[in-house]
C-alpha cells in the first residue's frame, strides 16, 4: 500500500567523510533528519531501534570508505553491527532493507541529498512497514 507522503528517513553521516567542507546550514536544510556523527562506529544499536520504534521508515548511514576510518575501524564496526541489527528488524517484520549503510566520501556533502532520494525510492518499493510488534 503506497502513500504519497514522504518517507521519514534518518540520515547519519560521518563528519570525517561527508559534508565537512560544505555549508552546514544549507546542507541541513536540504537533508531532513540529518544526524552528522563523529564516527559511524559510534552509532548505537539502541539509537537505530529507537528510531524505527518512533516511526522512521528508513535509516541511511553514510560512512567512510572501507578501511579508511579516521578511528581505525569504525567502518567495519558499524557494518558488522548493522548486519546483526538487520536480523533483529527482520524478526520483528521490519524489512531489513530499511536500514542501509553506504561507504564513500563526499567532502562537500552535495551528493548526500541524492543518496537520500535514491534510498527513498528503494524504500518506496518495499511493502508498507508494520508497527513494531503489532498485529496486521
Amino acid at each position: 500500500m503506497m502513500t504519497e507522503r514522504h518517507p521519514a528517513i534518518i540520515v547519519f553521516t560521518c563528519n570525517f567523510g561527508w559534508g565537512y567542507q560544505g555549508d552546514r546550514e544549507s546542507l541541513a536544510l536540504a537533508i531532513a533528519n540529518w544526524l552528522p556523527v563523529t564516527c559511524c562506529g559510534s552509532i548505537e544499536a539502541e539509537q537505530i531501534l529507537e528510531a524505527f520504534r518512533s516511526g522512521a521508515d528508513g535509516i541511511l548511514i553514510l560512512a567512510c570508505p572501507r578501511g579508511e576510518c579516521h578511528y581505525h575501524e569504525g567502518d567495519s564496526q558499524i557494518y558488522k553491527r548493522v548486519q546483526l541489527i538487520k536480523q533483529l528488524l527482520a524478526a520483528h517484520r521490519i524489512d531489513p532493507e530499511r536500514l542501509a549503510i553506504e561507504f564513500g566520501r563526499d567532502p562537500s556533502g552535495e551528493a548526500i541529498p541524492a543518496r537520500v532520494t535514491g534510498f527513498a525510492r528503494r524504500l518506496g518499493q518495499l511493502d508498507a512497514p508494520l508497527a513494531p510488534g503489532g498485529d496486521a
Partner: protein
Amino acid sequence: MSQARKKAKIAIYWLGACGGCDSAIVDLGGSLLELAEKVEIVLWPAVLDFKYDRIRSLADNELALTIMSGCVRNSEHREMAELLRAKSRLVLACGACACFGGTPGLANLRQKGDIVSWVYGDAPTVVNPEGERPQPTCRVNGAELRLPAFYDHVHALHQVIEVDYYLPGCPPPVDLLLGAISALLSGKLPHRGSTLAPQKPLCDSCPRAASKPARLEIRTIHRCHEVEVDPTDCFLAKGVICLGPATRGGCGGTCLAANTPCRGCFGPVEGVRDAGARFLSSLAALIAPEDDEKLRELLEAIADPAGYGCRFTQPVSILGEQSCADDNEEE
C-alpha cells in the same frame, strides 16, 4: 484483636508460567519449612489447594507479599495479577517471564493469528479436520462456559500491574530467592523497583573468564553441540556464542558449570535499556574476519541472531514493548 502474633500472609502465584519458578521455591527445602512456620501461605496453586474466593474476600493490602512468576498472555493472567496486586503490600516479579516476558515472549515474533493457525491446524501433529478453533464462550449442558481472552502479545508483569521488586532467572537460584523473600518479609526493604541480584555482568564472576585473551577476537563460530569446549575455557573465545558479557550475573553459573553457554535469563545488566541490542552490538564488535567474504561467512554462521537477542527479553525490548491496555480484551 488479641491474636497479637498474627503471621504475615503471603501468596505465591503463577501466571503464564511453566512451574519452574515454583519448583525453585520448593527447592528452598528446609528454609521453606522454616518460612512456612513464620508466615501463612494463603495461595500457592502449584503446591496447595485454595480457592480464589478466599483471596477475593481478603482486605486490600492484607497480604505482606505476593511472589508472582510467569508472563501475562491472557485475561485470566491479568485478572489474577490485578487481584493479587490489590491485596498485597509488596509484589515480587519472580523469574525471567515475570520480569521480562521470558521465553514465552518469543511468541511475539509471530502474529497471534499465525500461532492459532499453527497450534490448531498446520502443525504436523494436529488432526483437526473440522478446523475447530477455541471459542471465548460455549454452552455445555445448558451452562455457558467462558475461556480467558488470548491477548495479541505476551507481556512482562510490570506492563500490567505495579511491581515492587524483580528477581530474574529461569528460574531464579535458591540463594537469591531466599535472600529476596527474607529481605522483603523483614521489612528492611531495598530501594523500591530494584532488581534483587548483582549489577555486574556474568563474565565478571565467571571462572572461565581467566582464559579469555586480553583482546578477544572471534574468527570461527560454532554452535554449542558442534564442539566440546574445555570446562575452563571461555565459550566466546572458542567461537561459541555466550551471552555472559551482556547478562546480569547472580545465577550462580549453573549453565556454565554444565558446560553450556549463558543464554541470558538474568536479563540486561543494570542500566541497559535493551538486552538483545546490547548483546548483538557486543558480539558484532568481537567478530574479527580477515576480509569481507569471511565476515559474511561468520555472520551467516550465527544461527538465529535475533533469537539470541530476544530469548528472554523480547516483550521489554525497544521493538517489542507493548502496553497491555492496547491489547484486545475480546477476540
